[in-house]
C-alpha cells in the first residue's frame, strides 16, 4: 500500500480515535481495554484498507470488528468482569459534580450481559440502527430489539441508578 493510502488511513484514525475509544469504554468499562479494542480494530482496517475503502463505510467495518473482538474476549477467556466502582483516572474535570451520576450509569451498564451492553451503547450512543447493530453483532434484528428492551428494563430497575450510589459487585 502506498503513501496515499497511509495518509488517508492516518487521517481517518485521527478523526475517529476519540469516538472509538469512548465506544470501547462503553463496551468494556475500562479505558485501557477500550484503547486496545480500538487500536486492534483500526489496525485490522488498515490491513484491508483498499477493500474497506471500496466498501464505502469504514466506520461500520471498524465498529463491527470492535464488537466482535469484545465478544471474543468473553468467549475465549470467560472473563468475569470485576465490577469495581472505581472510576477511570482519565476523566475530564467535573466542576458540576456529575461524577457520581456517570459512575452510577457505568456501573449499571457493567451489570448488563455484554451483548445487551453492546446493543445499548451502539443504539443509544452511536445512533446505529437496529439493522446496523444486527449486522455488526451477527444476529437478527429481532434479537437486537429484544436485547435492547431487556437492557433498558434492567437499567430502569438497577440499584445503581435508583439511588445514584455506585455499588460494588462481587
Amino acid at each position, binding site marked *: 500500500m502506498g503513501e496515499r493510502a*497511509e495518509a488517508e*488511513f*492516518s487521517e481517518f*484514525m*485521527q478523526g475517529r*480515535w*476519540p469516538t472509538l*475509544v*469512548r*465506544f470501547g*469504554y*462503553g463496551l468494556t468499562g475500562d*479505558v485501557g481495554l*477500550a*484503547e486496545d479494542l480500538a*487500536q*486492534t480494530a*483500526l*489496525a*485490522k*482496517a*488498515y*490491513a*484491508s*484498507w483498499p477493500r474497506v475503502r471500496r466498501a464505502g463505510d469504514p466506520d461500520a467495518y471498524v465498529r463491527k470488528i470492535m464488537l466482535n473482538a469484545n465478544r471474543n474476549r468473553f468467549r475465549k477467556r470467560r472473563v468475569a468482569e470485576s465490577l469495581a466502582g472505581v472510576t*477511570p483516572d*482519565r*476523566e*475530564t474535570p*467535573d466542576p458540576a459534580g*456529575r461524577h457520581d*451520576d*456517570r459512575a*452510577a*450509569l*457505568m456501573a449499571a451498564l457493567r451489570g448488563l450481559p455484554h451483548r445487551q451492553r453492546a446493543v*445499548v*451503547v451502539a*443504539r*443509544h*450512543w452511536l445512533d446505529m440502527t437496529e439493522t446496523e447493530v444486527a449486522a455488526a453483532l451477527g444476529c437478527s434484528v429481532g434479537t437486537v430489539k429484544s436485547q435492547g428492551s431487556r437492557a*433498558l428494563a434492567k*437499567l*430502569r430497575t*438497577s440499584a445503581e*441508578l*435508583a*439511588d*445514584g450510589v455506585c455499588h460494588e459487585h462481587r
Partner: protein
Amino acid sequence: MSIDDERDVAERLDGALQAITPSPAPVGAALRKGRAIRARRRIAAAVAAAAAVAAISAGVSIVLRAGPAPAPRTTGSPPVTVHQPGPGSPPGLIAWGAAGSRRWRATVSQAPRGLLGFCIAVTAVRPQCESAWYLTRSSPVNLGTVRGQGESATAGPVWHGVTRVRVWLSGGTVLSLHPVAASGLRWVAFVLPARVTIVKIVAYSARGELAHAAACRYLAPGRCTPPP
C-alpha cells in the same frame, strides 16, 4: 435517578462517555500492526497451500457409488457434460454433470480425521467423501484421475490465476471448465464414462495459455508426453 426512556439513556450515556479523555491516537502503532497482519495473511495463505501438500498422503481414491447401468452405446461417444454450480448450490459443490447416462456431483469438504486437506466425492447417487488432494506450486492445475465402475473421475485444485481449463476428449468433445472456489482453493472436476479418455488438457489465464499436458497427473509444460 432513573432511566425513563431511550432519550434519557442516550443523554446519560453521552455524558458518561464524553467525560473520557483518550490518549493520543497511536497511528504509528496501528500502521505497524496493520502491516504485520497483512504479512501474516500472506504467509498463512502460502502455509495453507504447503500444508495441504505436506499433510495429505499422495494417492487418490474416489469411489463411485453403484448406480444405474450405463445405457448401451449405439452410435458416437456417450455424452459428457460439466456444469458450474449455480446460486443457492450446496456449500462445497464445485461441478456437476453427466457421464453417459450417469449423473454426478463433485463436492469439496474437509478430509476426515482432521487432516489438512480435502475430499472430492463424485457419485451418481449420494456424495461420499473419499479422497484427498494436494496442491503443488509447480503446476497451475493439479489433477488426479481415479477409475470407478466404468467411469473415471478427474478433479483437483488450480492456481489463483487459472481462469479456464479445457479438456479434449477422445470422440471430439471439448470440455470447458471454470474453477470454482471451495475450502480456500479453486477447483475443477469432471467425470468421463467408460472408453472415453483424455487427449489433452490446457490451462488458461487471463492472458492466454498457461500450461498443457496430455493425459497426465500433473499439468505443467514439458512434463508429460503426448499419448501415442
